[in-house]
């Protein structure tokens, strides 16, 4: 989970990393209140999850009230890097004597955390890496003992700075971060301040930080959609297997209920290649109980204007296909209005045959348009079939609407 800058500063303050005094505002009234507590020049920064705020005009140093109000009024609710601006932070401009860069993240090849430090702060670290790599110091970290403070002090020739970096490590491990980045770290007098804060929390670690005061974020955007929040709740309430912890809206007309982290990628690729427009991405895996699949089915099919539903996954190892598809059937029964669009199911694995017998009976009894494919049918073939059936459904629907129009005109 990515954090807003102001959330990052709040988290840093718990480990003793200071920032210039700031107030996060969500409307013009709050800007008005905050202004009274700050002295000009005031640095106004839009709070968005995508970087490059400086280059994109999202940061403005305001020397008077008019400048401040114009900037904030123009930014609230506006789109910045494709993201709606909900918050603007106002901070007093610090007297900065030097700007540095510091970050800690994981090296996926060496499988350890590492710290990067550079004297060239305030600019894009990728640029520094390219143009003057000698300016970047790297420290590999033993995850048990943390960075070696003596070594840091020796290399940086600055104990206060080493202390700052140790606190950064503190934040990194205390809150299960995947990334902490401060750019710039500002030297102000004898102290070091975090002028920016970029933090990505490890989603798997959130379970041990239930008390953390941060806003929910979307998988693919800052603001989670309603369906996304509802889907996420399924796993929060029940740890067995996983269902819906990732739910991304794609805006198309084919609902997708995929299975497995790897297979779900293949399914989305195959569906898109066949010309289908997915309504969403979501998946369940690891043998979730029947009720979890039922809940996810209801959420996935809750959208209007669907023209197909694709339930697709690989040959399962240990996921009970009967139980999970019974959950799908339970969910399907509760969807209103009753789905009349084609449903394509492709799966294999434990109790798949029993599951398909159950679904055939259900289709007959309730009049669902269900098409079943076993492991002998490639995933891509099932996806193409989904697109074909959905096109057929749409043209017959259009035909119906046309006939209705015609009869209206005649009457």
């Amino acid at each position, binding site marked *: 989970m990515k954090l807003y800058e102001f959330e990052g500063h709040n988290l840093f303050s718990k480990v003793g990393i200071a920032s210039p005094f700031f107030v996060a505002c969500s409307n013009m009234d709050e800007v008005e209140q905050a202004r009274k507590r700050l002295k000009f020049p005031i640095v106004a920064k839009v709070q968005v999850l995508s970087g490059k705020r400086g280059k994109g005009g999202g940061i403005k140093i305001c020397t008077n009230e008019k400048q401040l109000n114009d900037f904030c009024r123009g930014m609230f609710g506006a789109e910045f890097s494709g993201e709606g601006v909900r918050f603007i932070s106002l901070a007093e401009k610090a007297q900065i004597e030097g700007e540095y860069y510091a970050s800690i993240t994981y090296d996926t090849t060496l499988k350890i955390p590492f710290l990067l430090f550079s004297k060239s702060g305030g600019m894009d670290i990728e640029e520094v890496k390219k143009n003057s790599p000698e300016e970047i110091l790297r420290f590999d970290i033993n995850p048990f003992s943390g960075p070696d403070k003596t070594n840091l002090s020796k290399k940086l020739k600055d104990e206060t700075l080493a202390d700052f970096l140790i606190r950064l490590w503190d934040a990194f491990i205390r809150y299960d971060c995947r990334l902490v980045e401060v750019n710039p770290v500002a030297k102000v007098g004898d102290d070091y301040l975090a002028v920016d804060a970029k933090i990505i929390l490890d989603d798997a670690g959130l*379970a041990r930080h239930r008390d953390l005061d941060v806003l929910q974020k979307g998988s*693919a955007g800052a603001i989670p959609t309603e369906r996304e929040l509802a889907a996420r709740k399924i796993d929060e309430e029940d740890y067995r297997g996983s269902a819906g912890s990732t739910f991304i809206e794609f805006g198309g007309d084919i609902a997708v209920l995929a299975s497995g*982290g790897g297979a779900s990628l*293949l399914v989305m690729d195959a569906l898109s290649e066949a010309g289908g427009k997915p309504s969403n991405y979501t998946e369940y895996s690891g043998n979730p109980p029947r009720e979890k699949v039922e809940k996810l089915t209801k959420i996935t099919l809750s959208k209007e204007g669907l023209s197909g539903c694709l339930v697709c996954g690989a*040959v399962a190892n240990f996921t009970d296909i009967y139980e999970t598809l019974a959950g799908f059937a339970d969910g399907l029964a509760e969807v209103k209005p009753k789905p009349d669009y084609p449903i394509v199911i492709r799966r294999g694995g434990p109790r798949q045959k029993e599951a398909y017998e159950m679904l055939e009976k259900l289709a007959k009894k309730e009049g669902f348009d269900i098409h079943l494919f076993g492991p002998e049918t490639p995933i891509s073939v099932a996806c193409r079939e989904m697109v074909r059936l959905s096109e057929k459904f749409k043209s017959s629907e259009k035909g119906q609407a046309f006939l209705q129009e015609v009869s209206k005109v005649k009457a």
Partner: protein
Amino acid sequence: MAILVNSETKVLIQGITGKSGLSACADLLDYGMQVVGGVTPGKGGQVAMGLPVFNSVRELVAALGLVDCAMVNVPPLLTLDAAMEAIDAQIPLIHIFAERVPVLDTSKILFRAKEKGVRVLGPNSVGAISPGEGKVGSIGGPNAKITFSKGPVGVISKSGGMCSELGSMITNAGFGQSTVVGIGGDLLVGTTFVDALEMFESDTQTKVVVMFGEVGGNAEIEAARLVAVKKFTKPLIIFLAGKFAEKLPKDTALGHAGAIVGLDSTMEQKVASIKKSGAILAENFEDIPGILKKVIK
């Protein structure tokens, strides 16, 4: 010969009295594996599936002797402690099943394992199977004998489902597998594509390897590099999944914790490095059996 697991492999299960431990144990016994016993703290002295349960890995090893593999089948937040026990007892292979183990815990596990010279498979790994020989983890579940068959094809995938899907596809195409390895979909894993390829290189049974790659990370590029520098010399067929996700914002995490859009390398960079290396890129997933037929003459 196969890699990681064979007919001699002796296994212990940590968390043997839990639901996932019990079901994995049943499948292993059904496959003819030598499961010597299990560990659940506080339940020492009990019996699970006819096997003795101990309070710690150390107690089990003291009573029954060293085993080849410890399967860690405990919930994600308990995995660190359980894995540390197995590492400290120097069990040569540790399989970690749980999904959602915090990255910090994983990095500690892998750091200590490296110090002790212990191999970790996972976390978030479905396991490994050498068909007709043996298996560890939950790979193949109760259908392992139908899905997989013995032969010359090595298989590596982060995804457990795709291990079975590939096993079944390759079996139906008339080829068997030497070993099918689920390395796990997390950001950090103990055994990477490269590690598995190095083992397959020196395995005489393996003639060709099929790899299921994903969006995010550098693992596929590192595998391609191994081919380019001739440290892996057998034919390598790679399929890449997750092209659709390239349109999503950077840092979007998908089903696997390691499948993060824009992390390290883009799909385009992966495709380019595979093509340049001499490995074979399967454009469509169903092309794999056809390519295998051409490669295995």
